[in-house]
C-alpha cells in the first residue's frame, strides 16, 4: 500500500524535476515543477476526438495502457511492506502486464491507418523486445542470489555487504536506469522533443490521441518513471527503519530524475540503426551481473 502511495506521490514531481534539470543545464529558467501535472489536468478537462477510420480498439487502448501501468505498480514492495499483490514469480507478471499495455498502444497505433504510426509501432516493439532479456536476466540473477522469486522476498532478503554485492547493486541500478529510459522513450533511444515524425518512436504512436486519452497516456508515462525508480531504490532500502527508508526512497527518486535529466541534456539521440546494439549491450551487462552472482554463490566449481 505504502509503495503505491509513494510512487504516485513521486510521479507528481518526477517529470517536472527532469524538465527543470534540462532547463538549468541549457541555461534557462524552465517551467515550474508541477507544469506537467497542470498540462495533464488541462487535458483531462477536454473531450476526445476520434477519427472515423478507427475502431473500438483505439478507444480502449489508452485506458488499458494506464490500467496496466497501475497494475504493474501494485506488485512493487516497499522495504518490509509488501506490495498490494505479491506472489511467487510476480516479476514475470510485472514485465508482461507492462507488455500488455504496450501491445495495446501498438495495435491502436496500427488501427489509425496512419503510415507514420505503424512505423513508430514497429520501432517501439523492436526496442521493447531487445530490452526484455536485459530485465529478465537482471531480476533472474537476483532471484538466484536470494533464492526467492517474488519482488518482496527478493528485496527483503537481499543483503548488500561485500564490495562485489555493492558492485552488483550499482550495475543493476545502472541497467535499470537505462531500461527505464528506453521504456519511457527518453533520450539516448528516442527524443521526446523532436517534431519530425520520421525520427519519433513513442510520440508518433500517440499522434492521433487527444484530450482525455492523451492525458491518460502522459500520466501513465510519469507513473512508469517513478515505478522504475521504486524498483531501483528497492535494491538499497532493505533492512532500514521506516522513516529512514522513506527519506532514502525520495532521495533516490530525486537523484534518478536528475540523472535522467543530465543524460537527456548531454547525450545526443543515437542514430536509429545504432539503437539495437546499445540496448543489446544492456543484456550483455546483465549477463555479467549473472556471472557476478555465480561468483558470489561460489557456483564456479
Amino acid at each position, binding site marked *: 500500500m505504502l509503495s503505491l502511495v509513494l510512487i504516485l506521490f513521486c510521479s507528481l514531481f518526477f517529470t517536472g524535476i527532469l524538465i527543470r534539470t534540462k532547463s538549468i543545464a541549457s541555461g534557462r529558467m524552465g517551467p515550474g515543477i508541477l507544469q506537467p501535472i497542470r498540462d495533464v489536468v488541462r487535458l483531462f478537462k477536454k473531450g476526445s476526438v476520434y477519427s472515423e477510420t478507427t475502431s473500438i480498439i483505439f478507444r480502449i487502448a489508452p485506458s488499458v495502457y494506464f490500467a496496466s501501468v497501475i497494475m504493474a505498480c501494485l506488485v512493487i514492495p516497499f522495504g518490509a511492506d509488501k506490495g498490494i499483490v505479491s506472489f511467487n514469480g510476480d516479476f514475470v507478471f510485472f514485465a508482461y502486464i507492462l507488455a500488455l499495455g504496450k501491445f495495446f498502444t501498438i495495435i491502436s497505433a496500427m488501427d489509425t491507418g496512419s503510415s507514420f504510426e505503424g512505423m513508430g509501432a514497429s520501432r517501439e516493439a523492436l526496442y521493447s523486445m531487445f530490452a526484455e532479456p536485459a530485465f529478465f536476466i537482471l531480476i533472474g540473477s537476483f532471484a538466484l542470489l536470494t533464492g526467492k522469486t517474488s519482488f518482496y522476498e527478493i528485496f527483503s532478503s537481499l543483503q548488500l555487504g561485500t564490495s562485489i554485492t555493492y*558492485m552488483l547493486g550499482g*550495475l543493476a541500478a545502472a541497467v535499470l536506469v537505462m531500461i527505464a529510459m528506453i521504456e519511457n522513450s527518453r533520450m539516448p533511444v528516442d527524443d521526446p522533443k523532436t517534431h519530425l515524425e520520421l525520427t519519433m518512436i513513442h510520440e508518433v504512436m500517440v499522434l492521433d490521441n487527444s484530450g482525455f486519452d492523451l492525458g491518460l497516456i502522459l500520466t501513465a508515462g510519469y507513473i512508469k518513471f517513478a515505478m522504475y525508480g521504486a524498483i531501483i531504490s528497492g535494491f538499497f532500502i532493505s533492512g532500514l527503519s521506516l522513516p529512514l527508508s522513506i527519506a532514502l526512497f525520495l532521495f533516490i527518486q530525486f537523484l534518478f530524475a536528475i540523472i535522467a535529466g543530465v543524460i537527456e541534456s548531454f547525450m545526443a539521440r543515437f542514430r536509429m540503426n545504432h539503437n539495437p*546494439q546499445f540496448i543489446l549491450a544492456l543484456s550483455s551487462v546483465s549477463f555479467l551481473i549473472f*556471472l557476478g552472482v555465480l561468483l558470489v554463490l561460489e557456483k*564456479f566449481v
Partner: protein
Amino acid sequence: MTNVLLIIFIISLFYVSIANRLITYVRVLALQGFILFGVTFMQLKDIETWNLVLIMLETIVFKAIAVPMFLGYLIKRNKITRVAEPYLSNFMSLIIVTAIVVITVILANSIKDPLLDKIFFIVSLSTLFTGLYFIASRKKIITHVMGYLIIENGVFVLSLAAGNEMPNLVNLGIMLDVFASVLILGIFFNKIGDVFKDADVDRLTDMKDY
C-alpha cells in the same frame, strides 16, 4: 575488489565492440591500463617492494599513458579516418563478444582444478579471444595494433593470477612485448603512411618485391 575491477574490465570489452570511433578504442585501452594497475596493486601482495614498483610503473606508464598517447599521435599524424570501419556491423560484434564470454565461462566451469583462479582465467581468456576477433574483423592496420594490445592485456591478467609465485619473468616479458610491438609497428606504420595515403590492410597486398 579485484573481482569488481575484473568485471569492469569485461564491460570495457563490450564497450569497445560497439564503439564507432578510433579515439574510443584508445580511451578504452587507457582505461584498461588503469584497471590493470588497480588489479596489480591488490593482487600482488607477496612479492618484494621494488619488483612491485617496477610492475606498477610498467602498467601505469606504458599501458595507461604512453601507449594510448602514442596511438593518438599516430592517428593524428597519419590522418587516419576517425571511424573504425569494421567488416561486420557493431551489432554482430557485440553478439560475438558476448558469445565469447559465455563460451569462456562454460569452458572455465568444466575445468575441475582447485588451483585454477576462475575469474582471472575467464577474464584473460575472453580478452584474448576478443582481441583476436578485433584483429580479424577490423580493416585498418592501427586497429590491428589495438587488437594486439588487447591480447597483451589478456595475457597480463593471466600472469597476474600466477604473479605471486613467479613475478619477474612474466612481467618483464610483457613489458618488452608492449614496447616492441608498438614501436616496431609504429615505425612500420609511419613508413607506410608516407607511401600509401590510406591505411587499409587490403593495401598491404600491393607491397611486393619487383
